[in-house]
């Protein structure tokens, strides 16, 4: 238990470091003094926590604490800002979760994407919307009134989209007559759908008040997809991202969320667990 805890704190610290850096970009309206203090906050309590961990174990004094339950809503910053530097991309993703029990959260993502993919011999544009619904399990044991989350979750994803073949090139391994130029197509395939399962590993850290920043990585497995035609295939699926051979995909998001507290529950003391 001690070893895993150590492991966890080191990861938490590592993650929080990246969040500390990221914070600089978010609250630009604040005064620089505030920024500085806020930037240090996430690290400080963790050092204290490691100390209390040892003291708590020896003294077996469990402080009475209350867990807050409520709804967390926010937006994926990566998708939102990507359109600024990537002219081939426009997209938005809204994220939300609702705390069901001590460790379980119902979670969902709702998004829309418009992406042009430039491959060596293909240029396609995919437009569509998607929804992902599932749950997160918080595996992080918070101390005192911390509300950080290191979670593992599952999602079922569904997307409806269209794909346009803008242009393509013929592959000719024997270019005796010279390399062929791009051929403009403009063929559009409408009414495409896809469904998939995602495994999500994520972190959410409270930066101040009810504001959280989070990061998650996802591994996707395509369950089904309606292909554009017998010969053609879906090269990009909104929400699922780029398709790979073997129905495999991957993704991530970088969120800022606001927690709306609804009610509180007293945490049961740990001794009960030990007796069981």
């Amino acid at each position, binding site marked *: 238990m001690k070893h895993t805890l150590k492991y966890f704190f080191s*990861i938490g610290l590592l993650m929080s470091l990246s969040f500390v850096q990221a914070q600089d970009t978010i609250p630009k309206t604040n005064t620089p003094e505030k920024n500085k203090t806020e930037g240090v906050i996430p690290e400080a309590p963790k050092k204290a926590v490691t100390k209390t961990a040892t003291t708590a174990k020896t003294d077996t004094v469990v402080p009475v604490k209350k867990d807050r339950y409520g709804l967390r809503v926010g937006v994926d910053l990566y998708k939102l800002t990507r359109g600024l530097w990537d002219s081939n991309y426009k997209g938005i993703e809204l994220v939300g979760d609702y705390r069901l029990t001590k460790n379980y959260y119902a979670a969902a993502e709702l998004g829309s994407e418009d992406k042009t993919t430039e491959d060596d011999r293909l240029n396609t544009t995919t437009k569509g919307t998607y929804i992902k619904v599932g749950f997160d399990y918080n595996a992080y044991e918070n101390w005192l009134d911390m509300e950080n989350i290191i979670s593992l979750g599952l999602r079922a994803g569904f997307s409806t989209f269209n794909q346009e073949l803008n242009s393509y090139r*013929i*592959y000719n391994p024997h270019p*005796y007559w010279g390399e062929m130029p791009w051929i403009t197509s403009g063929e559009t395939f409408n009414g495409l759908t896809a469904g998939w399962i995602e495994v999500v590993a994520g972190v959410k850290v409270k930066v101040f008040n009810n504001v959280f920043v989070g990061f998650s990585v996802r591994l996707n497995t395509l369950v089904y997809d309606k292909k554009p035609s017998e010969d053609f295939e879906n090269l990009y699926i909104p929400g699922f991202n780029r398709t790979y051979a073997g129905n495999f995909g991957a993704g991530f998001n970088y969120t800022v969320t606001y927690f709306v507290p609804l009610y509180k529950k007293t945490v049961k003391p740990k001794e009960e667990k030990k007796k069981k």
Partner: protein
Amino acid sequence: MKKIIVLLLTAIMSLSSCEKDDICDANTPTTPRLIIEFYDISNPSVLKNVTNLKVIGEGMTEGIIFNPNSTDESQYLTNGNKIAIPLKTDGDTTSYNFILNSGNPNPILTDTDKVTFNYSRADVFVSRACGFKTLFKFNGNNAIEHTAVPATRPKWMQYISVEKSNIDNENETHIKVFF
């Protein structure tokens, strides 16, 4: 549970490094070439080797390379009984000059036949890495136009037979030439 998370994280980190997998495998069947086999006119079931055959596309200065290992003129010459020649993917006709005994010091022994192939094309999706390929279909009525160069000379190819009108792959013989 916690170990699983760590495992997952490391797995994802390692996966992100191998995104560029877009190389078209050379073994993937893509745009096929026209496969021609040469047969003996006096014994039509027997393959016959050509002697120093050079094949040049109309309007091209260099012939098709049959021996990539050679560097001099011999790289354009073949003495086998089977050749593969590429068709144009941006036009519906392709013309080739077939020069038998090419490079022979005695010009009377060198024969040139011009063959024009008429076909229609279809672009078919292969994969993300390979893009599209072009498949060909010979025209039903005038698949082949065959003349000697100059026209006063006799043709060295005595009979040309279209074996397969659909050129979808390189595993079958599309044209048989008897001489």
